[in-house]
């Protein structure tokens, strides 16, 4: 197991956000974390990356407790892709991706760092915007840049916080295809995601959170109406269209 979470609890002040979470993520797996707003999806990702300190419980990465990692080791093991990022100062696309080499560089990027970043720029087809400011590119491109940065960290695990929320249909598919492709190369992902149809299509396993607790976990069966309807408080219909299961929200319950 690349990630193993035992009895994880977290609270903001005294308000519990996560309670007794148990989770496992295998190598090359794409785990979709679903649940309504405020169910603790982002918090879970931030705990795994040690951005937030859990109240109790343990998180093991490749069998090693996360508190025993140095900050640099963590940054080489996990790439975190925030939901969005705002910079008040100009940053070029290339430099934004080059930040992903920070865990490897001392004070200045080496030529191999530059080489790696330019390969990533190319493989994500960002060449034409490489020298533009990230403030001047579209939301879809920006999301790709954030993922490209995480790829530059050469991590074992990617944590993506609602990577498709601000994207149009085509970019949603491109981004999720990229995550799937990386999983094929052995990079596991944990994806917090709102779109249940994308979750169903791209995630190899799913966990459904309700108010900070695991309501259901497993494969696609998590998306069955008996789980989704009580947690989201929405009446849904499912139907099969080719090889994909479609989830159609009907009305609030």
């Amino acid at each position, binding site marked *: 197991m690349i990630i193993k979470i035992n009895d994880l609890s977290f609270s903001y002040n005294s308000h519990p956000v996560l309670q007794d979470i148990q989770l496992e993520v295998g190598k090359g797996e794409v785990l979709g974390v679903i649940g309504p707003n405020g169910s603790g999806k982002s918090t879970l990702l931030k705990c795994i*990356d040690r951005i937030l300190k859990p109240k109790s419980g343990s998180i093991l990465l490749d069998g090693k407790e996360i508190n025993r990692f140095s900050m640099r*080791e963590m940054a080489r093991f996990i790439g*975190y892709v925030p939901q969005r990022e705002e*910079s008040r*100062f100009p940053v070029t696309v290339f430099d934004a991706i080059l930040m*992903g080499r*920070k865990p490897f560089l001392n004070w200045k990027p080496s030529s191999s760092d530059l080489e790696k970043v330019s390969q990533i720029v190319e493989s994500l087809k960002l*060449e034409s915007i490489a020298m533009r400011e990230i403030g001047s590119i579209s939301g879809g491109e920006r999301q790709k840049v954030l993922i490209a940065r995480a790829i530059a960290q050469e991590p074992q695990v990617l944590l993506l916080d609602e990577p498709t929320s601000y994207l149009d249909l085509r970019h949603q598919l491109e981004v999720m295809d990229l995550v799937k492709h990386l999983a094929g190369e052995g990079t596991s992902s944990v994806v917090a995601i709102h779109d249940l149809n994308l979750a169903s299509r791209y995630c190899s396993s799913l966990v459904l959170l309700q108010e900070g607790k695991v309501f259901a976990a497993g494969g696609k069966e998590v998306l069955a109406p008996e789980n989704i309807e009580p947690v989201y408080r929405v009446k849904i219909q499912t139907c099969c269209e080719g090889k994909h299961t479609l989830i159609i929200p009907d009305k609030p319950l």
Partner: protein
Amino acid sequence: MENRTVLEQYHKNIYLKLVFGAVVAALLTAAILYAIAVGSYRLTVAEVVNILLMRDLDSTAHHVIWNIRLPRILTAIISGAGLSIAGAAMQSILRNPLGSPFTLGISSAAAFGAAVALGFLGAGTMTSSAAEASIIINNPYLVTICAFASSLVATAVILILAQLKGATPETMILTGVALGSLFTAGTTFIQYFSDQVRIAAIVFWTFGDVGKAGWNDLAVISAVTFPAVVYFIINSWNYNTLKAGDETAKSLGVNVERTRVIGMLLSSLLTAVIVSFIGIIGFVGLVIPHIVRRFIGGNETYLLPLSAITGGLLLLGADTLARTVIAPVVLPVGILTSFMGAPLFIYLVVKGRGYW
């Protein structure tokens, strides 16, 4: 080969930044030579070169250059560089375009310290002769030490609050702004209870003037500025990641709190030392990083050192102008930078900023 093109674009981009640096350095060299030659005692370039090469040791020109103009010129350059790099570092560390030694109350704190020395501790007196009255600060080191101690208090309060409430940019900026007005109130209070001579001395001190510093003062300023510049450049990638937000920076392995606290401490110290010796020089720390960013973009590895050189050039230019514009009156450069800085900043706000 595709790969090449992205790298080529990147290297071309770096090359342009270096060209900018070379242009500024060339202008700085020219400005130094001009500033040595110009003034109420005029010199030719040949004389200047002769004296700089120590070929002419006894003339008045030698005295003018080595004892008056050079310390003044170098103080302008080093102080301009120090204030600018401190401003650039504060802006990135606090992720705020208004970060500067001025906005964070450090300059006001220094002025308060100087006011205490001049108003209560009797460090200044006024002499009047028949022709004109002049203010003499008869114990400059007492003033410097008080100004420095007072700015350290401001820095310490900001950092202690940052430790208690979390080192977020908001905590630091809001604390800084509050401290700024507190210290300004303190200075006004002292002035209210001082006699005319002391008020004059306090007001006189607050006009930043690079002519106040001699070789020894310059040595102290340099001894703080140079290591600080090196430290900031070494940490430039930490600041690059901080701009992307605390969470991103943490996920990239940067110790956010420590980087921010040390960076603030150092830039505050640097400001405190400079301001204590030469008084308050407004706008340089705020405006220069924005000008440089307009030309070369936001990469800190280049922004920090180029802000330093550009700041040195600007303050030297301003001081030379201040010496000559209404000669024989020598204006304190602080007045001129505020005059130039305010419209320049408004111009940048209206026209130039594509980025905040």
